[in-house]
């Protein structure tokens, strides 16, 4: 079985993102970029399935500008067999990403597609579900545990009420939650090895997907700030303050 993994590059999760003063975007110049943490979890899960003998090949997919290559090399160093780089200079929204992935799914015929449940830049939480809809295949979102056997996946999902388990026929789309696994660290020899692994480059425009029906982002604003509060010196003072506010 082949596993396709969505591997997005985002502003590093430790960066406190700043909105530009003119409201046209957020400051990304000179800001550290990293793999979307949920996508690292997706890749790690795929690698573990390959190591268990469930899958033979793990292919990562990135959509973005020419300099995305370095990011894809990281995914290859982590252990992916090869990468597909869909090139575009435009920002890609989830519906377009799902359509791109569908084209690649039709080309690659994977038994499983694993993507992060959300990217920590747009926080949309949509691409996996949209791909599953377009592909007309099952989805198991927010996965906390995945087992593959007999042509199906049994997935425990982190939901508001607790843990829900689904059985889905393969091929299927799985989106990862935080506790599915802990991604491995990249070792230096693997970085060297990754240099010889193949990256297919495909221009987004050549895939024939509709990209025009996007949401239009008209303004960026900083969130309203909570004003700094007061410090109290002991438990009695805290209780008095809360009683004063009518909260106790």
């Amino acid at each position: 079985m082949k596993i396709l993994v969505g591997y997005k590059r985002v502003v590093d999760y430790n960066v406190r993102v700043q909105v530009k003063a003119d409201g046209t975007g957020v400051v990304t110049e000179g800001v550290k970029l990293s793999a979307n943490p949920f996508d690292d979890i997706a890749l790690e899960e795929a690698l573990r399935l390959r190591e268990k003998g469930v899958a033979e090949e793990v292919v990562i997919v990135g959509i973005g500008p020419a300099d995305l290559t370095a990011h894809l090399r990281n995914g290859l160093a982590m252990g992916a067999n090869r990468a597909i780089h869909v090139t575009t200079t435009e920002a890609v929204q989830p519906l377009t990403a799902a359509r791109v992935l569908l084209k690649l799914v039709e080309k690659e015929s994977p038994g499983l597609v694993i993507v992060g449940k959300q990217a920590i830049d747009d926080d949309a939480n949509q691409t996996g579900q949209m791909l599953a809809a377009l592909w007309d295949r099952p989805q198991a979102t927010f996965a906390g545990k995945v087992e593959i056997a007999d042509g199906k996946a049994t997935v425990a999902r982190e939901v508001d009420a607790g843990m829900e388990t689904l059985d889905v026929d393969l091929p299927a789309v799985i989106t990862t939650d935080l506790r599915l696994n802990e991604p491995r660290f990249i070792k230096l020899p693997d970085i060297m090895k990754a240099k010889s692994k193949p990256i297919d480059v495909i221009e987004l425009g050549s895939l024939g997907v509709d990209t025009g029906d996007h949401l239009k982002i008209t303004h960026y604003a900083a969130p309203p700030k909570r004003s700094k509060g007061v410090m109290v010196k002991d438990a009695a003072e805290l209780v008095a303050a809360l009683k004063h506010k009518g909260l106790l």
Partner: protein
Amino acid sequence: MSKILVIAEHLDGKLNSATARAISAAAAVKPESIDVVVLSDAPDAIAAEAAKIEGVSKVVTVARAENKHALAAVLAPQIAKAAAGYSHVFAPSTTFGKDVMPRVAGLLGAAQVSDVMTVQGSHVFTRPIYAGNAIVTVEAPSDHPVVATIRTASWPAAGTSSSAAPIEVLSLDVKLPSHTRFVELKQGKSDRPDLQSAAKVVSGGRGVGSKENFDIIYKFADKIGAAVGASRAAVDAGYVPNEMQVGQTGKIIAPELYMAIGISGAIQHLTGIKDAGTIVAINKDGEAPIFEVADIGLVGDLFKLLPELEAAIG
């Protein structure tokens, strides 16, 4: 004029209160009508609850055995079909809405607006990105239905109406897939208030130190009648189950009182509590970022302070 369809979220035959928050957001669009659709194997009692929510024009029920569990792959084709004639389809941005709505959007070929915070116009909304570090204004195309999930912490629950809206049965000719099957749901059983709708929440973090130590958090929460939450660190460490996580990737909540105990306050956690009325932080590290957003801060050892607080409350 806008006509809005709101997807009812429910579990064990009861309407989830997040639905009434999505109805508030629908009302903000100032539509001609707001209809609620209940998809279930036994929708009647849930529909009766939804019919009593203020602003609801009518409730439609889709009763099918396949709708016993909320499976996105089963529900989405029915919702996409039921959406015909509506300008907007809304659901709460809970794990239910987050799972099913993008699948609906995919079927309709529509972009989705996730986590609507405010309504600026029938097709213009604000929503958070970068863990709430930026708020964007987005305009949805007008040639497709607007598919949106509603950030529940940004909206009050719609009130109760004096007269119940009519309930209609809807039968949809949709072939449903059998490729997705429900196995089980392990629910955290608790007599405490529900984390997502509680007026008071007490959360513990890494500073609590262990699963056993978390008892001190439960005990204090019970003393003041609060729900219990946790930071990602506490969930990752196995102190508490995943459904208690508050933050960017957990629950986004807006209680009147939020007490962060032994939580340092990573931005991913803060995004889950920004809409709380009053934030109280107790942490032994006076430099912890949680104090930057706390309305009231107290530096000290939580194991010493919580019993003292209980005693002081009396």
